[in-house]
């Protein structure tokens, strides 16, 4: 058992356990120290993940765990998202007297997401998804006395239970067909043929099952509620981390399937429905957090475009990760702004924000423009690569649909930008403390640095591939 291959995950696990113990014994005024512990754990995990980058793509633990560049890149992204979310939390949670274990739950969620992305075995995948789900249910409903939070938690839990059971059904069916849960073996057996109907059902169940964490149609309905009701740092975490993990897991799974399956068309249809639905629903929102939630749904639709062509286009996987990274940076910055403004959420509360909070408004505008894909922000390059691989993979119509959707999305992003800049202000603007300010600046700097250093990022992305 090469334990060293799991160092990042072990660090997260140990960190979470230490935080739970610390939170049980620490006095109330020191609960926030758990954030520091969590950051240390995240930094160590990121460091160990970086060490894994150089290795050639490999499988470990009898082939159930992938150690490839795709997994490492996902880990780094997810840990980064976790760090920003943790950094946003101490100020947000200050009013909650006992909240140390909050950080442990964050780490468990991240651990589950990392397992999803690294799983090279369908049971491993299920375990990862369940871990990240169960750890994040309580996070969403952490403000027990806040009705929308409870509603969001309930929705999240029920949809999760339903769709995850669908996933498990799919995995069991696949196991019955193949006689193994290991991906390498699965790919071999599937290549030699089998019962096409049962295989189609199994594949459909697994793909649909993954839409839950991806927040794509039909498993998307929790996303806007969570974005609105959950603590804002948790919303930042869940809109970013679980989406990245699920997208990579889905890409890894579909690249096993033989060409004869119709999965690209199915995924393409899911992509179309997801992006269109997300954008149409976001158009109507007068609540900024809910709007960001729906925009996050539509972004899942874009990400699926790369999954569609993953078997045809060698550049599809790098494009997928580049897009996810760009999305993560934009979305984290947007949620950092929302958090720093004490979670202010009604669109009307953003009127004239540009006059009183110029820096915060500038970050918000940059984040939203990056999410639309206005060049030269990093979001543009993400979207550009997606369009490129989609057209090169022969799905030009999908790129056209995505372009139309981008225009739609511009409408609601601009609405937010317009009220901050053009309306006159009313009332005072209260902000959280210095931690959230720091997190806001970090996310903004990351966004700008990624936009300016696109070349370096893309060069890294070139090296991304799956093991096996």
């Amino acid at each position: 058992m090469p334990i060293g291959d799991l160092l990042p995950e072990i660090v997260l696990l140990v960190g979470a356990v230490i935080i739970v113990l610390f939170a049980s014994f620490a006095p109330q005024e020191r609960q926030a120290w758990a954030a520091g512990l969590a950051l240390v754990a995240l930094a160590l995990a990121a460091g160990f993940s970086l060490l894994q980058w150089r290795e050639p793509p490999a499988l470990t633990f009898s082939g159930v765990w992938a150690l490839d560049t795709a997994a490492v890149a996902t880990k780094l992204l997810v840990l980064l998202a976790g760090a920003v979310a943790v950094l946003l939390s101490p100020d947000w949670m200050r009013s909650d007297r006992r909240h140390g274990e909050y950080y442990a739950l964050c780490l468990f969620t991240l651990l589950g997401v990392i397992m999803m992305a690294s799983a090279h075995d369908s049971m491993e995948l299920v375990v990862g998804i369940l871990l990240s789900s169960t750890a994040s249910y309580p996070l969403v409903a952490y403000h027990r006395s806040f009705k929308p939070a409870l509603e969001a938690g309930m929705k999240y839990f029920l949809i999760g239970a339903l769709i995850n059971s669908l996933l498990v059904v799919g995995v069991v069916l696949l196991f019955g067909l193949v006689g193994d849960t290991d991906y390498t073996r699965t790919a071999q057996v599937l290549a030699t043929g089998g019962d096409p109907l049962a295989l189609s059902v199994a594949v459909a169940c697994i793909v649909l099952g993954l839409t839950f964490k991806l927040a794509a149609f039909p498993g998307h309905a929790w996303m806007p509620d969570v974005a609105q009701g959950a603590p804002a740092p948790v919303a930042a975490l869940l809109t970013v981390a679980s989406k990245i993990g699920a997208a990579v897991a889905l890409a890894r799974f579909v690249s096993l399937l033989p060409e004869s399956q119709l999965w690209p068309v199915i995924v393409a249809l899911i992509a179309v429905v997801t992006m269109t639905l997300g954008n149409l629903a976001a158009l109507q929102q007068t609540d900024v957090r809910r709007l960001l939630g729906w925009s996050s749904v539509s972004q899942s639709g874009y990400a699926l475009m790369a999954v569609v062509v993953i078997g045809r286009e060698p550049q599809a996987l790098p494009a997928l990760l580049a897009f996810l990274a760009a999305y993560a940076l934009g979305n984290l910055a947007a949620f950092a702004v929302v958090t720093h403004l004490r979670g202010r959420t009604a669109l009307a509360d953003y009127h004239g924000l540009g006059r009183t909070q110029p820096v915060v408004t500038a970050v918000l505008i940059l984040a939203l423009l990056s999410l639309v894909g206005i060049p030269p922000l990093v979001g543009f390059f993400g979207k550009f690569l997606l369009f490129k691989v989609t057209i090169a993979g022969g799905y030009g119509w999908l790129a056209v649909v995505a372009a139309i959707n981008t225009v739609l999305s511009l409408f609601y992003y601009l609405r937010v930008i317009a009220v901050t800049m053009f309306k006159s202000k009313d009332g005072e603007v209260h902000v959280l403390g210095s931690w959230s300010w720091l997190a806001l600046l970090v996310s903004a700097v990351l966004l700008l640095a990624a936009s300016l250093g696109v070349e370096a990022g893309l060069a890294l992305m070139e090296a991304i591939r799956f093991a096996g």
Partner: protein
Amino acid sequence: MILTVAWIVPLVGAVALAAFPRWSEARARQWAAAVAALSLLALVVAWVGFDPAGPLFQHVDELRWVPSIGVAYRVGVDGIALAVATMSALVFVAAIVYPVNTLGQPRQYYAWMLFLQSVSLGVFLALDMLLFYVFFDLTLVGMFFLIGRWGHGTPQVSALKFFLYTFAGSLLLLLAIIGLYLSIEPHSFDMRVLIERQPLAGTGLYAGLVFLALMLGFAIKTPLVPLHTWLPQAHVDAPGPASAILAGVLLKMGTYGMIRLPFAMMQETFAEYSLVVGIVALVAILYGALVALGQSNLKRRIAYTSINHMGYTVLGIAVAAAMFSDNLAARQMALTGATVEMVAHGLITGALFLICGSFWQRTGEYELDHYGGLAHQAPLLTGFTVLAAFASLGMPGLAGFVAEFQVFAGTFAVYPWLAVLGVLGILITAALFLDMLRRLFFGRLPLHLGQFAELKRAEWGVLGVLSLGILVIGVYPRFLLTLIEASSVLLVGGR
């Protein structure tokens, strides 16, 4: 280097304006004007250093940017780009110097103006398709804020409509650019390579789709009928100087883009569809002129004449693309005429919209019926308006005539019927401008205009410079034609 200076200087100026919160209105305006003029100067230097007998693209700068996807920072100009860019810089200087009510936020206003100047020049100077697209999109951002914040009427609605509509066009453009990019091995965004290799020649449907997406994208920007509906509203609600830039500079990106991308890179496909494009242009010419005639709102009327004039440019481009016609000289003349039309229209319509701004600042009214008999009250305003209107309707001796003559002469040789019908557009334009002048300046002075003030020094100074440009091009077009012909000969294939 000189081209990089030309677009970076305004950007630096904009950043400086944003960074120094204590600057007064006068200081901000002086700074912006100086910076804009410096950028204009850089382009004039580039013009002087341009060798008409040299290669197509000159003053080329190249820097690595994102080599892994074939993107680089590449700028350079041919005669067409240089002429349009220099005109744009001049219009920007004029728009910045022109007095306007900045609603208490002078620094922001001038910073956005300079930002817009920087990215607009970038569009004309870029030699890399992706860079072109980047600048093309950023102009929308700049214009969005200028209209939304300093406009009147329902500025936010107009700004949003403008952004959405034209962004839809630019996404089509992006898809087409990716289509072009993928068609060449190794994949590259370098315009020079694409122009030289014509990668889509003979690829049938694929080329047709890319061409369609490119033309739709540019037609929205130009705008061509029936994709013009964003234009009148954006113009009416924008502040005067922003309108001048919108008409003088931003519309040119559509027609310039047509020359740079589909015309230069897909000659074979364009030739196939040149008659269709020509007919669409003819519709735009006639429809724009007729609708303009029906407008009772001063700004709307001028806005619709823009559609008409851009129609002449597109007609010229379509004729120049008709490769099957062996009449090289005629095609060259049409392309030169189209470019001169861009320059002339920029100066003329820029002046007309600035004049609209002056009307608005004095009365807050665009309805023609509100005015009358101003010739005595404001002789200078009358003089400049008459000059610009006559130039716009194609009076010989002024800039518009040089352009329209060449376009129609070229068209007559290739598509005689289009030329015959197109000339009707000039007739209608003449009618609508004469009617406009009559209703603004002649007849009896209404009582409520008793206090109507004559142009201030800053206003007539700016209009004087623009009018001088219109006159010089009309009387001595040689200096401009030498520059443009150097490139149109190469592009049409005469050398």
